[in-house]
């Protein structure tokens, strides 16, 4: 994507513990907000689908009382649709119920309508109708390892789904279980965690069982992925056959976020936290770190961020947009959201005092900026 023109604008979606906020902007500086949508429901997952000539916002909604569901809006939140028969539910015979939708991942431009979802209990789902109905991925659900997968603190979930451009290679990350790879578009799955430490297990280098927090694919190098682990930051250059540490140069190897550039090879962002037992920014100073050489070196980015911050940034509470230069967005458990229109060089606060931020997504959309819809 080239420079912005008047026919484009930006959408920022912020999912929190108590509802969803939406914002639109023309310049990524001034934002017009609406919300809360789905007040008192948590929004752990958001997908903004700009394919097919429309902007569809899909959200995973979860009420403590009334359970989870997926809803979508084609008018920037002015109205929401929940498919009458439910978008996502376990089929009969599985004796399982969806607890929380952790991930909504629109597939490639070349596969319009295809949307993946990751859920708790650990499961992967695929929609071919723009997120209105998802089918359970049986290959992963019936995997012989499933009974041995565990639950991280937040629950047992498939939280990352990465599909390569051809659609053959699908990587899923789960906590806990690690990275699983399919070479046949999701039919069969194998663990691919060689090199990733699971220091909290009796065997620190198991075939699976790692607590990977987030994975993301390099935009331009096929077979290269990055992982932020429960202690450990890694890269693979061979389609997850081998992972190597790229944590050197970071102030800490713990954290939840892993973002990659929309186009440029070798660029990724993390938000380090001090440690498993101290889930705060190192020294209480919040900073994003970016690599432009696939993890060989890291640059600390904290311009515009507060001097002191003791809240964590969760795995999906960060996003990039597809503009040039790319925008970087993230929110904290303290309810503050920061945005950068220059790949992280400078940040500005765009929202504060919201409930805990669980998910942030941003996108460039066609059309002049409009005020986001009225609260649901």
């Amino acid at each position, binding site marked *: 994507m080239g420079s912005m023109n008047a026919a484009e604008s930006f959408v920022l979606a912020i999912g929190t513990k108590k509802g969803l906020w939406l914002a639109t902007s023309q310049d990524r500086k001034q934002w017009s907000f609406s919300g809360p949508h789905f007040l008192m429901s948590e929004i752990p997952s958001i997908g903004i689908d700009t394919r097919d000539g429309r902007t569809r916002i899909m959200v995973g909604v979860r009420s*403590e*009382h009334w359970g989870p569901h997926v809803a979508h809006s084609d008018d920037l939140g002015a109205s929401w649709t929940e498919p009458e*028969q*439910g978008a996502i*539910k376990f089929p009969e015979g599985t004796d*399982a*119920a*969806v607890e929380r939708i952790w991930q909504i991942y629109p597939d490639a431009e070349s596969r319009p309508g295809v949307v993946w979802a990751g859920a708790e209990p650990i499961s992967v789902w695929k929609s071919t109708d723009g997120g209105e109905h998802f089918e359970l991925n049986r290959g992963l659900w019936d995997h012989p390892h499933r009974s041995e997968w565990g639950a991280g603190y937040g629950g047992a979930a498939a939280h990352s789904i990465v599909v390569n451009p051809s659609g053959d290679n699908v990587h899923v990350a789960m906590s806990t279980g690690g990275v699983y790879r399919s070479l046949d578009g999701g039919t069969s799955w194998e663990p691919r965690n060689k090199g990733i430490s699971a220091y909290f297990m009796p065997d620190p280098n198991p075939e699976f069982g790692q607590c990977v927090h987030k994975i993301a694919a390099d935009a331009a190098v096929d077979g290269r992925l990055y992982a932020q682990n429960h202690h450990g930051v890694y890269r693979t250059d061979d389609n997850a056959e081998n992972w190597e540490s790229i944590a050197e140069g970071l102030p800490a190897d713990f954290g939840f976020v892993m973002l990659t550039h929309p186009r440029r090879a070798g660029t990724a962002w993390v938000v380090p936290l001090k440690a498993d037992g101290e889930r705060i920014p190192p020294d209480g100073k919040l900073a994003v770190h970016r690599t432009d050489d696939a993890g060989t070196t890291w640059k600390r980015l904290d311009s515009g961020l507060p001097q002191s911050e003791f809240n964590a940034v969760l795995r999906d509470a960060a996003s990039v947009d597809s503009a040039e230069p790319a925008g970087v967005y993230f929110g904290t458990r303290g309810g503050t959201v920061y945005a950068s229109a220059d790949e992280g060089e400078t940040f500005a606060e765009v929202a504060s005092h919201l409930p805990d931020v669980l998910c942030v997504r941003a996108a460039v959309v066609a059309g002049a900026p409009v005020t986001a819809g009225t609260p649901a």
Partner: protein
Amino acid sequence: MAEISVVLPGVLQPLAGGQSILTTPADGAVTVGSLLDSVTGTYPVLARRLRDETGALRRYVNIYVNGEEVRRLRGLETEVSAGQEVLIIQSVAGG
């Protein structure tokens, strides 16, 4: 024929076309489970708010029959007699 009434909390009424009470004809006792099947049959979104896809009552949804929460009785197998009223109330939870 006698009826059994199910009283909905305000927050769920939009999912039942704005109704606060759903009724079903009954000439004898029915279980709470089959009562829910009956009154939510045309409101599938409402049905999913109350029970998950395994049929289990959601953890923080309480259903009262004669003032007793059904988990203290026989759960969804609790019988309700014609003419009785059933209350659905969300439990006090969250923060």
